[in-house]
């Protein structure tokens, strides 16, 4: 086993060309859609600077602050989806784990321990999801749907029927997570990019990623290659819940308020982002860049509707259309095989 192959071998195995890579990349379609939308919005904004405020610092900051909210949840959901499972309970973990943090902090627990408490809630939910799904061989869709409801109501119950908690976080902590830099770059977005890089490193540089793709792509073949599929998926479930918790903590840091009222449909938004981004619902396929671009496209659509002053109820409709179109497009692209 040598460090670099002999040059004549290297020469025989060419790199796949850039065009081919984009064409065959799972995030190819969403990348094209993203670039087209961005160009169109920019051109329209340049043509109508007084009515379409797309290029203003304020709007950029708004968009970049909104993306991480469901984008970070989607990163976790995406990792798990590649490993071949779903998690709908992220919608509740997103709320309950940060609520746990706020509750602990409000009751005098040091912040670091309160954060640790939030992540231990996430890890527990992830382990329960994994255990029920893998032990009893139930579709994770159903297991985590149940957990979505259970976790959602457990937080206010345990906290004595509190509906929301206002907390005063240390200013440094709040700034590190949510400060708006240079007027248009919220720190949340940088955290999102950082976490996307972490997800990328897990999937493409860590052996766990290889196991995720194998377990999600073909469970039996993975098992035959000596991969412990149950263990692999358990780790993916836990990571997924931890990503959701991170997003929730950012949200609490931003508003200084932890609520037990769920943000509606964030778990479904996360799934939608992943599917638009080219991840397969059946597992084993997809890339982190697709999740990032999927989240960006979803938020761009919402932004355009707001900037164009269309009635609010169009928002869900357009998002729905975008999701369906995204899936159809990806299916059409993948059909080549």
């Amino acid at each position, binding site marked *: *086993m*040598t*460090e*670099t*192959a*002999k040059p004549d*071998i*290297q020469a*025989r*195995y*060419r*790199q*796949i060309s850039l065009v081919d890579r984009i064409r*065959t990349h799972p995030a190819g379609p969403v990348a094209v859609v993203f670039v087209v939308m961005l160009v169109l919005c920019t051109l329209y904004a340049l043509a109508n600077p007084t009515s379409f405020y797309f290029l203003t610092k304020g709007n950029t900051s708004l968009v970049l602050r909104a993306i991480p909210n469901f984008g970070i949840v989607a990163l976790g959901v995406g990792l798990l989806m590649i490993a071949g499972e779903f998690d709908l309970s992220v919608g509740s973990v997103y709320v309950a784990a940060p609520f746990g943090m706020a509750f602990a902090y409000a009751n005098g627990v040091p912040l670091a321990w309160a954060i640790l408490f939030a992540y231990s809630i996430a890890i527990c939910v992830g382990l329960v999801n994994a255990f029920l799904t893998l032990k009893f061989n139930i579709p994770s869709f159903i297991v985590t749907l149940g957990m979505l409801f259970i976790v959602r109501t457990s937080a206010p119950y345990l906290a004595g029927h509190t509906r929301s908690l206002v907390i005063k976080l240390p200013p440094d902590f709040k700034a590190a997570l949510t400060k708006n830099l240079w007027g248009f770059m919220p720190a949340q977005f940088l955290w999102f990019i950082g976490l996307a890089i972490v997800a990328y*490193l897990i999937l*493409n*540089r*860590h*052996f*766990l990623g*290889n*196991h995720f*793709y*194998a377990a*999600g*792509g*073909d469970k*039996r*073949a*993975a098992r*035959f*290659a*000596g*991969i412990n599929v149950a263990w692999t998926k358990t780790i993916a479930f836990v990571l997924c819940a931890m990503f959701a918790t991170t997003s929730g903590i950012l949200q609490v840091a931003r508003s200084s308020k932890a609520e037990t009222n769920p943000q509606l449909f964030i778990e479904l938004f996360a799934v939608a982002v992943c599917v638009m981004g080219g991840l*397969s619902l059946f597992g*084993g*396929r997809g890339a982190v860049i697709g999740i990032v671009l999927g989240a960006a496209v979803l938020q761009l659509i919402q932004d355009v509707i707001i900037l164009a002053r269309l009635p609010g109820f169009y928002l869900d409709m357009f998002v729905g259309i975008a999701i369906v179109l995204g899936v159809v497009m990806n299916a059409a692209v993948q059909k080549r*095989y």
Partner: protein
Amino acid sequence: MNDSQLSVDASARASTAEIPIFEARRISKSYGHVEALIDTNFEVRRGEVVGLLGDNGAGKSTLIKILSGVVQPDSGEFFREGRSVDISTRKKSEEDGGIQTIYQDIALVKSMSIMRNIFAGREPTNALGFMRVKEMRSTAMEILDEYVRIAGITSPNILVEELSGGQAQAVAIARAVHFKRDILLLDEPTSALSVRETEKVLNIMRELADAGVSCVFVTHNLYHAFRVCDRFSILAHGQNVRDCKKSETSLNELTDIIMTH
């Protein structure tokens, strides 16, 4: 790649030829009232291709499952180079028995690249678990170059689903060989392949055997078996009915044996 593992020199081969590299003795297995194997013996010598032949229901599948550690026999013993071994799990079959089984459909994950497949479950990593991607890439290229040499594989980053059946089979074989098993157990490797691809896979088996890696070729197709095997082991109704060298038999005789039992 460890050359000594593959190219055993002639004198070493002659001296070890007497002790089979792997031997299964008096294997029995019943499923309820059905006796799938009855005191069946099977052996593999270094550097040979053995054809495991027999009609449907002869006990071939049961024997393969036992050899690959998926099914436990009711009785029987296994020996690797004369020493008793336990092959009761897949891991033990691979590591202690030295057997690498290549099943037709589940050898590779189709949605993954060749490189990811080659290292699935045995990624070279640093202490933190991060893969040595550069090393993986160059090793993958060497593996493809050394054992496969099948036209059309231009990069280790190609997804397996883009390969033809023969190419995928070749990659699965190359992976198995690279991880240094003594014996490849190939279950119907040619049944889904075109004529041309079949030819290639048969050639790969032959080359591997000549380089010292023994192959067990399980097949229905007597023509394929006769083209490549050094020895034949024929099962019928769970029992050994014939074990002979190629030079001692003919295609017609093999056909007769299988037909008349």
